[in-house]
């Protein structure tokens, strides 16, 4: 039992889905209840990971391995390190929240909806747990289809366009990524004489820079589209705007993280030479900076509430990729924390948009205004989410952004300076959004009688709020969990980094007291 814990976490949602399929479609309430049970169960079974996890151990933990396709060298290997742990926890929690939030929003094809959601959940968890590239790729693709349906079936007016755009974009990227994977796979065969997809084995490869570069770009396309990094981001606003609320939440909170996770887990350790190649780093950092500023500027302009939040994701994810390619411990750790933060904050923002949308069926910012008068709880929660997203200290966003900025600053001061403008603009568009929707007078009679948050809606926010405060006030556990994996990655990519002062690699906090 205990040695299969990760598998249990991984397949709980899938089991939930299979049981869900047995419930007749017309019993919608039963379906809803069951889906919520499955979602919450998914979260609860993931909780033991927290205390089973040993933050001082290096490498992967709770590893499970089984033969799967011996003739390909593909195995079922799952395991987590600090980075995966955080993302897995994010996935289970946000997944449960998203399922809860759909209670009243989804009125038709309920069964299909929840089934897709739970399937999606397993896919995402698999991505974060897989330690075998083949397995990873399978889960990676598994996430595509449910999201296609979630957008395409329950989405807004332009859902078809958005869904297929999402699907095509990400698929095109992932197929190219597959080619990159295969190249590594084959190179490993050439060097070691057997085929394997195991990450740990592939890490032993020693490839020339030129080849690494090609593989890097192949991976880049796959991951960057998912993130999405600057020139590949246009699927995101469409997908977000058209997706139903919970879909947007999952999309923003978790699905996008698959891209950044891919960079951290695969691009960096497997292709260290390419990842250190100045041209590549420069290109990626410039793209990240463009994303930060660009996403913020475009957000500033949006008339559509949801689109605004969507573009803000582009900006925030720009921070994450910047942190990754700062290629130092703080940049990486900050990036992971910021990924969690973005999951929390933007997840909340999308939930907030969804609640407004559910009540008014419009996302035009101009349609709102003065909601704080009629929906004070809602306004409070919104303010909270907004501030957390804008990086107010003592809330989660600050820790992430600040640590990333530190990493970027260490790598290159100019980068940090550019990135800091994102901080300014972030406040600008969020506050302006808040002002236009929540503050001022009620100018639209339709808004006069909007009900405030009910208990269920409030319940979707509370865990996220609590988590945001936790990260904001006491982020130490996060850094502790991340220290080992992040250090290992940096050690692998830039062995000379720690050679500056070998003492440092294990220097405890107290040294500086």
């Amino acid at each position, binding site marked *: 039992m205990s040695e299969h814990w990760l598998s249990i976490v991984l397949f709980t949602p899938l089991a939930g889905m299979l049981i869900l399929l047995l419930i007749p479609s017309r019993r919608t309430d039963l379906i809803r209840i069951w889906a919520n049970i499955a979602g919450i169960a998914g979260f609860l079974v993931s909780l033991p990971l927290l205390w089973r996890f040993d933050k001082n151990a290096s490498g992967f933990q709770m590893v499970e391995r089984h033969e799967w396709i011996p003739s390909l060298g593909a195995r079922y290997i799952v395991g987590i390190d600090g980075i995966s742990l955080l993302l897995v926890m994010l996935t289970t929690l946000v997944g449960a929240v998203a399922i809860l939030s759909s209670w009243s929003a989804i009125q038709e094809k309920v069964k299909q909806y929840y089934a897709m959601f739970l399937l999606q959940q397993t896919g995402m968890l698999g991505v974060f747990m897989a330690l075998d590239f083949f397995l990873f790729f399978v889960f990676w693709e598994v996430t595509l289809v449910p999201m296609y349906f979630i957008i395409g079936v329950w989405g807004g007016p332009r859902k078809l366009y958005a869904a297929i755009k999402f699907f095509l*974009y990400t698929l095109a990227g992932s197929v190219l990524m597959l080619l990159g994977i295969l190249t590594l796979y084959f190179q490993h065969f050439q060097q070691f004489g057997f085929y394997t997809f195991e990450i740990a084995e592939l890490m032993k490869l020693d490839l020339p820079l030129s080849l690494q570069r090609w593989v890097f770009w192949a991976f880049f396309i796959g991951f960057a589209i998912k993130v999405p990094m600057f020139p590949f*981001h*246009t699927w995101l*606003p469409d997908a977000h705007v058209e997706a139903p609320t919970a879909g947007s939440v999952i999309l923003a909170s978790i699905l996008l993280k698959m891209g950044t996770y891919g960079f951290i887990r695969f691009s960096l350790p497997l292709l260290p030479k390419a990842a250190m190649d100045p041209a590549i780093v420069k290109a990626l950092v410039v793209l990240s900076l463009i994303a930060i500023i*660009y996403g913020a*500027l*475009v957000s*500033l*302009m949006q008339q559509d509430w949801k689109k605004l939040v969507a573009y803000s994701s582009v900006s925030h994810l720009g921070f994450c990729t910047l942190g990754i390619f700062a290629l130092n*411990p*703080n940049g990486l750790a900050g990036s992971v924390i910021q990924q969690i933060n973005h999951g929390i904050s933007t997840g909340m923002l999308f939930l907030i948009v969804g609640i407004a949308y559910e009540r008014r069926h419009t996302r035009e910012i101009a349609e709102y205004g*003065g909601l*704080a*008068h009629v929906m*004070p709880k809602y306004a409070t929660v919104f303010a909270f989410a907004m*501030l957390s997203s804008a990086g107010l*200290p003592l809330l989660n966003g*600050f*820790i992430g952004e*600040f*640590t990333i*900025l*530190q*990493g970027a*600053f*260490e790598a290159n*001061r100019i980068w940090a*300076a550019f990135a*800091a403008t994102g*901080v*300014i*603009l972030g*406040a*600008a568009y969020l*506050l*302006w959004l808040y*002002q236009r929707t929540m*503050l*001022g*007078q*009620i100018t639209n*009679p339709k808004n*006069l009688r909007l009900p405030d948050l009910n208990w269920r809606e409030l319940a979707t926010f509370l865990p996220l709020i609590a988590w945001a405060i936790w990260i904001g*006030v*006491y*982020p*130490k556990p996060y*850094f502790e969990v*991340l*220290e080992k994996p*992040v250090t290992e990655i940096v050690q692998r990519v830039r062995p000379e*980094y720690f050679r*500056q002062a070998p*003492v*440092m690699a294990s*220097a405890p*906090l107290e*040294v*500086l*007291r």
Partner: protein
Amino acid sequence: MNFLELIWLIPLFPLAGAVLMLLIGRRLDPQGPSEVAVAPGIAPEGTPAAPAHHASHHARRSRALISLLCPGTVLISLIFSIGAVAQLASLPERTWQVIKFTWVAGLPFFTQSGAPARFTADWGFLLDPLSSVMILVVTLVGFIIHVYSVGYMGHEGGYYRFFGYMNLFVFFMLMLVLANNYVLMFVGWEGVGLCSYLLIGFYFHKKSAADAGKKAFVVNRIGDAGFILGMLLMFSVFGSVRFLDVNAALSSGRFAAETTGFGVLSAMALLLFLGATGKSAQFPLYVWLPDAMEGPTPVSALIHAATMVTAGVYMVARSHHLFRLTPEASAVVLAIGAFTAILSASIALVQNDIKRVLAYSTVSQLGYMFMACGVGAYWVAIFHLYTHAFFKALLFLGSGSVIHALGGEQDMRRMGGLKDKIPITYWTMVVGALAISGIPGFAGFFSKDEILWQIYSSPQGSRLIYAVALLTAGMTAFYMWRLIFMTFHGAPRMDAHTLAHVHESPRVMTVPLVALAAGSVLAGWIGVPKLWSFLPDSFRLFEHWLAPAVSAAAHVHVAEHAHEAATEWLLMAISVAVALAGIAVARHLYVTRPERAAALRQAAGPLYTVLANKWYVDEIYDFLFVNGLGKGGGSALARFDSRIVDGGVNGAGWITRLTSALSIWWDTWIVDGAVRLTAFLVKAASFPVRLLHTGSVQAYALVIVLGATVVFAWYLMR
């Protein structure tokens, strides 16, 4: 009780109050529909909108708890602060650090010099003379203003919200001043900004209030970005941001003073100062503060006069080790301070809104404090900060009392003749005005005079700056007394109805006024000039307490020129004379010969217009960032303008908008365009391919043969 060990509790009391208010305050303070602000023309269906007063009368009793609780938390903080400061005084090193836990617990990195370091920040508190002054000011003035607010806000909706925010503000302000490192200080720094945003926008149904709040936040954010970068630079240079570590490193001698060049320390200092200009409303980022007067008056008093806006000064003083090593940066501080002081003073000369006058006055006084910092007289800056807190809070609260009395009127042109109707307000305000003008004996005199003297005597100062400061002092006296005269003297200019309802404020408001007035008189007496040797040294308590803390400047010895006592006396006389002159002119123009004022306005013509329009700075910003080509452009641009620029953020601006528009355009047509083009091409290519299938079997056969031909041809051409 060991108060020193418990200093971490000081901020937490107000936080508890705030959390309580924001969570359950709504229950304690049931809101009628009065809080629903609806734009004219939109009838709330069915529900009669009860006037605010009725609802709040019912609610008053249940508000008592709030009224007790919230000021109470601040009072407890005050008590703890006093206790802690008293115990601190008995410590020989006068520094007490409490570290609760590691807050930002980042990972290892290497400093500029290659030394290993860790990106960490404590949840830690530092009590030293500097922060002890600040916590006393914050808790004391904060408490007084809380009490005042009980009266002032008594009729307002959202009472619980107001006090929640106020308590939250006090929490953050205490965090700011008690933090033992820059990052934690930044928590307070941002937090007070947030509270400022919330409180400015307290009347959020007013668009102007919401706009002002947003403007404040965004403008502050510009400064914050500088602050963040400064901290990062600090990390990369020192490997730590703890004040004690940084100061120790700076005074260790490892860093040479950057007297000639512009090095990394100067960059650090200027980045931090950029943060300070944002928070303390210095040029060019001062524009938010006057707009911030949209908030309730106690807010203006507490946040935008006494405490928050002085955070920048505190931060610069906190970083005095750094600034001492960077004369160039200090010179910038001095110049910015001087320029801001005179600029805003000149604007204040002609403003008619009572709170705006005070706002510009605040900006100007902050400029003063920065001037003191610029010349290295940090304790003086803090001294002025401290005295200013009293008299400016007093003036604001007084103006609040006036506004209260007049039922919300803020325009001084519709006031006058109030001095008998609201005597307590009048007399306390007079005290405040005397203090700010620098009349000897009042608090302002001591601090302001000391600043002038320092500017004059310090090697970093100059005659020009001194002249500017002096001129500013004169202007200060003028506009402040213009305020007094226009408000309280002469014939009443308000309409009869308002006049009939003029009443003195309740006790709960006047008592704080009196308390602050007492402070405005007495506060200065702990920092009398050295010149006044007839007074015992205990009158120079402030300097003794603070000066060693902020001038223990490492190895750079700032030689103080030995000036003649006579010079000092002379300068003191000049400044007093200038202040008196200002008062006299004001009296002449607004009491004795009011018609002259109008004539002068005529005569000054353009100058007056320029001043009345605040040097057009807002307009220039608007032009640069907000309106841009909008006005000159064609109809197309005008449409664009009305759609996009209209009602926009002042700070974020037009260029931003244009870029955003371009970005969206780019997204739609270039990035997405490429994708769509591909999709289009695929589809477009689909038809020719399909058209190949004409349905004619012979055509198919021909294609086969053509294929074979090509294969053969390929072979032959090979």
